Each structure stands twice: as C-alpha cells, then as structure tokens.
C-alpha cells in the first residue's frame, strides 16, 4: 500500500489504511478507526429514503420489478467480477448504492435496459480503470452511455423544486459527503454552478426567482450530493477536486444554455471524468479508502507517496463505489 509499514505507527488514524493494520498497531488507532462507520451505510440510508419518497410521494415511474432487477443485477455483477478477478471481499454496499442511484435516475422503455444499465455500471468499475482507480462514477457512466445511445432518459423534473425538499436533501447529502470526507467537491460544484446561474440571470436581467428555481431542483441536489461527490472517482487532492468541480459546473451550464439539452450535470460529469487522471498527475495525493475517510491532505509530519496502480493492490471492493454510484 502507499503508506509504508515503517511509518504506520506514527500516522494518526486518518493516515492509516485500515485494511493493512497489523496486530502490533497501537490500540488507539484500531479503536478510532473502528468507530468511524463506513460512510456507505449513510449513503444507503439516504438513497433508500429518497427512493421511497420518490415512489410513494412523487409517484416515480419505476416498477418494483425494475427496482428488484436493477439492484439484483448490480449485486450479481459485483459478486461475479469479484470472483472472476479473484479479489478479496465482496463489496456489496458499493453495488447496492449504484443500484439505488439507477433506480431513481434511470428510465427506459424496457426493463431489460435497466438490467443492462446495472451491468454496465458495475462492470465499468472493474474494467475501465487507470492507475488503480475506476474512471467513471458507475451510475453516471451507465446513464450517459445509454442516453447517448438514445435508449434511455433521465427525468430531471421528477423531483420538483420545493425548497423544503431541496433543504432536506442538502442536509442528508451533506451528511453523507461529510462522512466520506469529500464535501469539498459538492460544495465547490454547487457554488460554481450557482455563480454561473446567478451571473447569467443578472446579465439577462431576469428576476432572481429563475436561478433560484433552477437551484432548488431536486435532481441537481441529488447530483451534487450523491454523484459528483463520489470519492473514488474524484481527484485525490482538494485543489484537484475544486478545479474538477468547477469544470463540471461550467460543462453543465454549456449543456443547458448553449446546447439546450437537459441533464447538463450528468453529461458534463461523464465528459470530464477522463480528466481526473490528468488532474491527479498534476496534483498528486493519496487515494481514498472507504474505511478511512480522508480529505487527501497528508497529516503534518507524514509523507504520503502518490498512489498509483503499482504500489497499490487492485481492490475494487473498496475502489468501487460510490455514492452515487
């Protein structure tokens, strides 16, 4: 692993890879690390609640069969790929998160396309990789690919734009990203996008109710707090993530106001994800571990080596994922 064994005992908990702990690791580190719950539990809770709210309050167009098949396929493909590649640990939580995300975003004329989406999402994590990280947020990859093929769509209006809903989702999403220590991406994205929307409306002389209405959109909130925040597919350093988030916000605005197409954030994220390796190359930092949420900043007194595929095990279990995924 990137953190050398020789300095393990000096690292504070946030700098220790829990997966490589040895029996001689000081007890305080073990205790502190184990107290930090895997942030994916919180994501599963949030996404599951949002799905139930969507189904029973907002009347989403998604059948129980589609939900079952999507989640079942995601878990099945995760398991099969783990087995086929002889990897340790079946990371079902990550697959479940990807499946839940697809349930409330993915829409298609055939239920089998939902199965295909779940398959593509999970498979992309295992097979489209660069330097030990998967390139695309799994959910985003499947959505963008199938929308590009013209066989699926996302209904950005389905959440409505009630301020209450937006507020609730900000809170829930904020909690999730805080747990996974990647709130900087979400915050940078929403600030950048808000600045663009407000600036455009000011330039056009529109009343502020217009950009506010756009910012209250439920789909935008879900993207912000459950998709772009994916710690496994964002740059490793805070500076990199802020840069990346600003680029995605600009891309989303171009899709919406130059190309006049819906789902700008999803398209922009898919188009810009391949930039992450470049940003990581220019701004190196340690990779994220689900079991050890960290901001990517090296603790004072420690020297983190840039992570790359050579020094790190291939562990899609922990490398999968994501929130929104």
């Amino acid at each position, binding site marked *: 692993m990137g953190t050398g064994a020789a300095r393990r005992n000096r690292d504070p908990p946030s700098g220790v890879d829990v997966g490589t702990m040895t029996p001689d690791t000081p007890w305080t580190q073990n205790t502190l690390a184990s107290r930090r719950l895997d942030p994916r539990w919180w994501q599963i809770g949030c996404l599951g609640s949002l799905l139930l709210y969507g189904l029973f309050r907002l*009347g989403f167009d998604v059948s129980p069969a589609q939900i079952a098949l999507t989640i079942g396929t995601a878990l099945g493909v995760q398991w099969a790929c783990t087995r086929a590649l002889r990897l340790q640990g079946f990371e079902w939580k990550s697959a479940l998160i990807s499946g839940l995300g697809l349930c409330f975003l993915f829409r298609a*004329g055939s239920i089998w396309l939902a199965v295909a989406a779940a398959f593509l999402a999970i498979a992309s994590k295992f097979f489209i990789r660069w330097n030990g990280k998967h390139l695309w947020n799994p959910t985003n990859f499947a959505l963008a690919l199938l929308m590009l093929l*013209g066989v699926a769509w996302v*209904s950005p209006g389905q959440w*409505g734009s009630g301020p209450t809903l937006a507020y609730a989702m900000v809170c829930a999403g904020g909690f999730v990203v805080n747990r996974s220590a990647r709130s900087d991406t979400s915050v940078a994205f929403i600030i950048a996008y808000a600045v663009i929307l407000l600036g455009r409306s000011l330039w056009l002389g529109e009343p502020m*109710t217009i950009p*506010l209405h756009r910012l209250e*959109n439920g789909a935008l909130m879900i993207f912000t707090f459950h998709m772009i925040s994916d710690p496994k597919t964002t740059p490793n350093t805070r500076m990199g993530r802020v840069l990346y988030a600003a680029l995605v916000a600009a891309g989303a605005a171009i899709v919406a106001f130059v*190309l006049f*197409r819906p789902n700008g954030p999803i398209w922009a994220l898919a188009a810009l994800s391949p930039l992450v390796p470049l940003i990581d190359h220019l701004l190196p930092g340690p990779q994220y571990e689900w079991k050890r949420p960290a901001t990517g900043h090296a603790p004072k007194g420690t020297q983190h080596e840039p992570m790359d595929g050579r020094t790190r095990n291939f562990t899609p279990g922990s490398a999968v994922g994501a929130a929104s995924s």
Partner: protein
Amino acid sequence: MAVLGISLLGALSAPQAHSFCGFYVARGDAKLFNKASKVVLVRDQDHTVLTMASDFKGDPKEFALVVPVPAVLQRGQIHVGDPAAVDHLDAYTAPRLVEYFDPSPCQMRAEEKAMGNMRAAPMSQKASADAARERSLGVRIEARYTVGEYDILILSAKQSSGLATWLAENGYNVPPRAERVLSGYLKQGMKFFVARVNLKEQTRLGFSYLRPIQMAFESPKFGLPLRLGMANADGAQELFVYALTRNGRVEATNYRTVRLSSDAEVPEFVKDEFGDFYRSMFRQQHRREGGDVVFLEYAWDMAWCDPCAADPMSREELKGLGVYWLDAPGDGGGPGAPRIAPPGGGAQNVFVTRLHVRYDEAHFPEDLVFHETGDRENFQGRFVIRHPWRGEGECEGLDAYRTQVRARREKEAETLADLTGWSPERIRRRMGGDADWSTPQEPRPWWDRVWGSPVR
C-alpha cells in the same frame, strides 16, 4: 388597444393500456376553461412546428400576439392553420367518462366465469412605423408578411426599452413588467414574432373567427415561453399543450410532470355534469400538488385509441398540424400497421402527449422546457360510472347484490368528494335524486336481523 401576450394553453392526460369494454359517454375538453390557450407542438430532432390557438373572443382589432422566436422566419415558415384540427386534437385527447351496466344479479353467477377476466384494464387520452423612428429605437423590422388574416412582423431590437417603446407607439399594450422580460429574450439573440389581424383580409377571406397561427423553425430549444404572457396576465392562465412526436411521451424538465387521476369510479350523475367534474377535479389536484406541476392528461400512440373520445385524426389533419414525417417511407397506415386501428386508419410513428398547465408567476418563474422521452406507455384520463341493475325479480343473490351496490355507491361518493372537493352532502343529494331502492343508506346492522323491529 391591442393585447400583448402569448396565446399558449395547455392540456391534461392520464395513463392506460390494454382492452376496453365500457362505452365512452363524455369528455372534458379545453373549452371548459377560461383564458385557455392551446398549443400544438410538433417536435422531431431539432425541428419544431408550433400551432397556437387562443380562445380570444373580443374585437379582432384588439388582438395581438407577441412571441419570442429563435430566428428570423421566412414567409414559408409561417402558416395559418385549421382551428377544427386543433379542436379535434383537443377532443381526441380529452379526459373521458365511460360507463358500464351491471348485469342482473340473478344471472351473475352464470356469467361470473365469463366476466372473470374482463376487468377494465387501465387505458391508455402596423406595423407601418416610420423607418427613422425604428432606427432611433434600435428596432429593426426583419421581415413583414401577410399570412391569411394576419399581418406579421419579425422584429429584432438592440434594447428592450426601444422595443417596448416601439410596441407601445404602434398600439400594443405593453405592461411595465414586460420590458424586463423582453430584455432577457433579446440578450439571448431571440427575435419577436408579432401578429395582428388584418381586418380587410379577414373580411375578404370570410372568417368570423381567428384561425391558429403556425410557425416552423429549427432550434435545439424545446419549450414554451410563458413569461411574456404572465407579465400581461391577471391571475392564473390555462395552457394545453398537445405534443406530437415520433418516439414517445413528452415531459417538462424543469417542473414536475404528474399524471392526472384516472380510472376512478364515480357516481352516475357525473355523466350529466362531466364538465363541472373535470374543472373541480383539476382545481383540486392542482392545489394538492402545490400549484407548480404540469399535468399529463393523455399519452398515446396515435395508431389507435381505446376508447376513442373523438374520431381518430386523419393523416391530412396531422400533416396540417405539422407532422411532416408521415410522408416518409414506411410511415402511415399501410400494411403492418395498427393492432387496433381506429376506423379510417391511425397514424403510425406519431405519439401524442397532452399536458395541462395552470400557471402564474408565483409558481412558474421560468419558461417551460420539455424533452421527449422514449416512453410509449399509453395513458389517458378516464373515469368510470357503473349503472346498477334496476330490473325486477327475486332471487337468492339479490340482497347481496343490493348490499354490494350500496357499498359501492358509498365508495363512489367518497371518491368523488376526494377528487373534486365537493361536499359529501351535495354528492349524496345528487346521488339520491337519481335512484330509488339503491339510494345510499347505512347498511343494516347484524343485530337488526336478530330481533327485528325495536320493542315498543
């Protein structure tokens, strides 16, 4: 004084599919609503054909239409349509009422097996301004046409204040708030399509009413500008949008699209006041959803309908509304077509979506934006009445049937009260007036059967 605004009105719809075995008896069309605009939106890729019909009933001199358009339109891109085709499409997609008749309970047992699988499945239902003045205001008349009974100008402007002044000087009633709206559209590079009635032409053509204006253009923008109309409006306006697309249902991307209630069983008297029912039901649902949603009232593959609330649209009508792809090889009603083709043949590769929007500035701050989905599932706003059997006879099942009918009527009354917000007392009164022995009443308690009449 002319009216500045945009005649845009909306529509309603509901989900459906499968077979239908009731009888269509009534429909609720857009005429039931005041200040309603009807817009037919034909969309394929970036091609749009817009047909705008308003319920303007005043002096034609007072009529004016101002619509932001993405480019300067050529003469051939503007047309005047047939109002009958728009009305026909409105009727074809309107929410509908169907009725069923109960069979004799004395024969029910025999027919039960046959009827077992026949549940009603969800169904898919002046511009002569001085040139120098124009220049000083920064307004430029890009084109000037007379099409049918309309004089049409395509304007561009440098400043919204100049455009507002020009419009005011030319007899258009420009509300103060509209100038700001005009500014936003101008900065986006949009032009203004301005139409007024040419009375001489109207007299020559012999029309006593205003025909819908149509325009065809190519633009990635897929939506409807509401804001200019709202600047001119007092209170909420109704908009019915009939989208005709090649692939599937159309929905809003910046507002929730909600299906209208459908398939509810309602009391028999609704047949006589379906219009009132539809208005009340829409008002109630609009309020419940918070007033900021778009209602889907009908989404259907136009190759067939079931039940058909009006005769199917002919190919000529659809072409007149702008469905240009009907001429493509393989389209149209040839071999290989509809499973349940309506008489006269349905149009293939045309999917109709009827959306109904009641909008005001507080709930619809931005213009409507749409996208076409791949969803081809049929949906229609459909309501059902079931007539009880009122025959004479005596048989073992009759008491049970009457009890069942009373329970059903109670349920229908509750459903109607919930859908419309009408008072239960009014509903009960109306229901009582059209029935005899099956008037809703409290079911007889079990103990009443033990001792019979109370002891005196």
